[in-house]
């Protein structure tokens, strides 16, 4: 495949939005209030919009006729490159918000760097996405604060979610082969350099939310290399259902 590294690099970015968008889409019509329902759907909508930009570009780069839908829906489990964090289920609203927050903070600082990419398409996509993601960070941060500094029950639930999801944060800063190659070309973002800023921002917000930063130093990884948690397979069965059941059709 030509441009294999760039293709894989794009998938690495887009799969995070794809899988998180799918998770947020599950909640549509089932949120704790009408306002949060609308907000979660809106985030899902933004993320899928981003996915389309990345995958359309990825399809163009490969140039073998594969479409955004082929890339989104016709890969095998092991070929999805999203981080483990985004595939975690909507256990309750605190988990949904915690997952969103821990990803959003990363997403925002990542896109700020991606805007500087010397790949003009990628930089333009980042430029569009960052406006949406700034809103996502505000939404999820506000809710972490509300739940953290709300009632005793909500504080316990929010802390439980942060504790449980913490183990998936370190992976955000792991580099894949495609990452290294793209950083060398000035196209990709060196995620290892974002780590300090990330934990600083997250730590500050958790403090403001009267929550504590988990102390565990045990982290999970594997998503970027296609080794996922057991949750992903079920998510993909839904995502791929139509394309698998009715192959080669237009919708």
């Amino acid at each position: 495949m030509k441009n294999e590294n760039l293709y894989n690099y794009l998938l690495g970015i887009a799969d995070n939005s794809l899988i998180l968008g799918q998770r947020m889409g599950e909640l549509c019509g089932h949120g704790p209030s009408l306002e949060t329902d609308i907000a979660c759907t809106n985030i899902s909508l933004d993320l899928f919009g981003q996915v389309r930009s990345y995958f359309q570009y990825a399809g163009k780069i490969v140039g073998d006729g594969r479409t955004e839908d082929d890339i989104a829906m016709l890969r095998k489990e092991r070929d999805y490159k999203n981080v483990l964090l985004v595939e975690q289920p909507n256990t309750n609203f605190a988990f949904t918000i915690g997952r969103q927050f821990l990803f959003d903070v990363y997403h925002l600082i990542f896109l700020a760097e991606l805007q500087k990419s010397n790949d003009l398409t990628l930089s333009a996509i980042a430029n569009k996405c960052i406006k949406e993601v700034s809103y996502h960070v505000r939404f999820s941060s506000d809710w972490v604060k509300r739940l953290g500094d709300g009632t005793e029950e909500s504080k316990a639930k929010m802390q439980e979610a942060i504790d449980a999801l913490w183990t998936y944060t370190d992976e955000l800063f792991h580099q894949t082969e495609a990452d290294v190659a793209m950083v060398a070309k000035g196209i990709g973002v060196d995620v290892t350099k974002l780590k300090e800023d990330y934990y600083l921002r997250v730590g500050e917000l958790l403090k403001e939310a009267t929550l504590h930063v988990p102390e565990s130093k045990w982290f999970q990884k594997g998503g970027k290399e296609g080794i996922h948690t057991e949750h992903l397979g079920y998510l993909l069965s839904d995502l791929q259902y139509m394309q698998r059941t009715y192959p080669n059709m237009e919708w």
Partner: protein
Amino acid sequence: MSEEQIKNLEEQFEARIARDEKIEPKDWMPEKYRKTHIRQMSQHAHSEIVGMLPEGNWITRAPSLRRKVALLAKVQDEAGHGLYLYSATETLGISRDEMYEQLHTGKAKYSSIFNYPTVTWADMGAIGWLVDGAAIINQVPLCNTSYGPYARAMIRVCKEESFHQRQGYEIMIKLANGTPEQKDMAQDALNRWWWPSLMMLGPTDDVSVHTAQSMKWKLKRKSNDDLRQQFIDQTVPQAELIGLTIPDPDLKWNEEKGSYDFGDIDWDEFWQVVKGHGPMNKERMKARVGAWERGEWVRDAAMAHAEKKQERKEK
């Protein structure tokens, strides 16, 4: 106020409506007017919210990214309509929580059409095309209804609904022009949604209650049977255009009256669903009540947090 004074007010009130003036929240209104509007507007808001469920059912399984994004946006529009209509209803002196309570206890109704299951992707097309199509026919006249907040809400709602209707029809076009399997899927969806869509326009005029009063207040401008006829006359050519067959052997163009004759509607089925025994009544309510109950701690937290913030500000 003496009886005579009230009678006077009522006369003035009816005269204002007859002159096509809008009634606004702070205006005097007869209690019956207020109650009727709370009932109809909240029922409308509930329909938007419950209506999110059958379509929400396909968001995770939409066949393409483009369709997924469009469906998400559509369901989000419905949530927006719900929000807008709840707010408009609140101007009549009832809270959103009270309205939810009425929905959850079964005191308030919502459109029965949402008690049917969405079993295939084609149902997303059929709902947009037929259900939103019938809804528009019901709702367009309400853009000129007498209660100002409702009329204004309906103008916006109708604009978006007509977009949804086109979007649904476009899904059907694509399926009808697709593979035999896709065409079958579209025909099957039309077969299942056709009759319930006709029922959406309400019971026949001879058994319909409330109509006379509603006509006077411009909550209704045409009778159920007239609306139904309009829907059928508008939809049959759309089905023909894409090669689908309306599942009614008695459907026939009547040259003399310039509209279609159609077969008998199964009103037993209609009443069964209205009375809570449709295929999905229990599931829909379980989903709504479940979301509300699971969300209680979240809403409590938001309230507690807002109070803490306020306290800190005052210190």
